């Protein structure tokens, strides 16, 4: 039954979307910065995966893991180098948005120069690709593979956030930066580390994105950022569990749209963003951060 196919497929894809949006949510939660270059980091993760496969036949699953430490390093360095200057601007919030927009354009341009403007895809057999029967429906294997990678990574992240001292400090800064500083937490260091973790999550999601989207191209970043933003707003900005739930819901919604309203399926993220902001600005779980 088609609805069942959309539901199960949507939940599996939703695991990917949750991982994909989590980095953006994390960075926002700690510093109230919307990283408009998020989608471009995902794109870079996708190209890294493609290069590793073409050059060394590294499976995308492994590339997702390789992307993690790279992402942390790059994000941390970037934060240390660039962000301190931002405080000088008159209107920090809007200026940080504009700054990251500029950075998104730079990354996209460098991507096009470095990798060429074409879309690159992995061959079908880069990951297991036989059909899988489940609950009476036949699913392409890639849905399960992607979920099988996304779920442990998400679990790892949740463990980090809720069970490690660093995670505890991060959550303290997310709740109230000034109080956290008063208690002796080095908020700048936490902000930089968190930016690194957020970048790492995005890069790992990029390795899976090249499978989900059947390819990667330099110009995909902007659309991806909007989708991630829609998910985190819907799931309540700054709330990690909210992002996971919202990711799953988004996965299901987009698959259902494909079945019943394919010509309008593009509009799902926009409807989600606008609907949430206008009707229930605090998102699904409320309270954490308000936008109005």
């Amino acid at each position, binding site marked *: 039954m088609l609805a069942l196919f959309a539901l199960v497929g949507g939940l599996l894809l939703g695991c990917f979307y949750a991982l994909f949006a989590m980095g953006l949510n994390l960075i926002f939660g700690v510093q109230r910065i*919307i990283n408009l270059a998020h989608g471009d980091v995902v794109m870079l993760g996708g190209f890294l995966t493609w290069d590793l496969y073409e050059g060394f036949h590294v499976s995308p699953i492994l590339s997702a893991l390789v992307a993690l430490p790279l992402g942390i390093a790059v994000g941390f360095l970037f934060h240390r180098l*660039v962000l301190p*200057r*931002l405080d*000088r*601007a*008159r*209107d920090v*919030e*809007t*200026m*940080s*948005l*504009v*700054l990251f*927009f*500029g*950075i*998104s*354009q*730079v*990354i*996209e*341009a*460098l991507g*096009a*120069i470095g990798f060429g403007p074409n879309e690159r895809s992995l061959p079908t057999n880069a990951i297991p690709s036989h059909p899988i029967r489940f609950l009476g429906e036949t699913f392409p294997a890639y849905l399960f593979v992607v979920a099988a990678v996304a779920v442990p990574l998400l679990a790892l992240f949740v463990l980090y956030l809720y069970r490690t001292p660093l995670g505890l400090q991060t959550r303290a800064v997310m709740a109230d930066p000034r109080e956290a500083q008063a208690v002796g937490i080095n908020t700048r260091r936490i902000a930089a580390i968190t930016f690194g973790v957020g970048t790492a999550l995005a890069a790992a999601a990029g390795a899976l994105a090249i499978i989900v989207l059947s390819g990667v191209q330099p110009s995909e970043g*902007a659309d991806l950022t*909007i989708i991630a*933003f*829609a998910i985190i*707003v819907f799931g309540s900005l700054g709330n990690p569990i909210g992002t996971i739930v919202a990711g799953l819901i988004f996965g299901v919604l987009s698959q259902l749209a494909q079945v019943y309203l394919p*010509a*309008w399926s*593009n*509009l799902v*993220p*926009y*409807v989600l*963003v*606008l609907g949430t*902001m*206008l009707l229930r*600005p605090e998102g699904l779980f409320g309270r954490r951060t308000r*936008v*109005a």
Partner: protein
Amino acid sequence: MPEHSASRVDTSRRPRLLNEALGVLVPVVGFSLALHVDNNELLLVYMMGYVAMAQGINVIYGFTGYLPFGYFGLFGAGAYAFGIGVTHLHWPAFADLALGGVGAVAIGVVLIPLFRLRGAYFAIATLAAALALGDIVANPALTSLTNGPDGLNLGSVYNSGEFYVSSVVLVAVSLLAVVWLRNSRFGLSLRAIRDDPYAASMMGINVPLRRAVAWLIAAALAGFAGALYAWATSFFYPTAVFDVTITVLALVFALFGGVGTLWGPTLGAIVLYSLYDIVGVTDPQAFQLIYGLAIAMLVLFAPRGLAGIAAGIRNLWLRRQEREVNRATA
């Protein structure tokens, strides 16, 4: 010293009036004569559209502090309203131009509820709305109205003399709007709202209404720019007018020149748009790179743009004058 302060108050008014008069006249006269210098009329028409839109960003961001990333949605709305006027209503071109402005203002009215959101969220919400509008316009379900993804063909109203003059008029209108805002009580109340909305409303200012007026002025400017684009280009697809690059350019032009000033966005648009085309012509593949870097550098190192740099230099010079005067009178 009473004499010093009084003279400073008086002398600041006459140069300012002159500055604003020049700020309107020089671009208008310049563009009127520009065709005799460089007869690439499409380049000039597009440039004038960007002057108007940079001033539109000036109005909405400089005076209210809200930055609409989705500004291009109003440009596209104006272009398509013009197109609908031509293809369905068969109105003459000037009437369609007016329709373009009306269409953009209508969309602007629909987006007013977004002002409930704070700065950054307003920015992204307008982006989502503009992208959604582009998708809706391009949807085959709407082919009977907008021709959907097949693009518009407006060749029947092509008239380069008329659309060129109309573009010059649009530039004049946009500059006059900014002059009015800079010198009127209304503009002052807008700046009060931008700096502290709560205090402003406690003074009895109707914050939502005034902000909406500024927004609709900016929307009309973008709408007319879009309508003129449609008129001058004749054949285009939805992706050409619903393109976030349009906002990027208008934003960079305004920021580079200096938001809140009269000359800033005009100069930013003229200088940078010329550069943008030269870069395109001489072919390094890096225009997007340069523009992205420009945005990043502007934010980090020169958030007030050229005008800020100019003001900084002028302050330095004034302070030197003052020091000399003090030394002389001491």
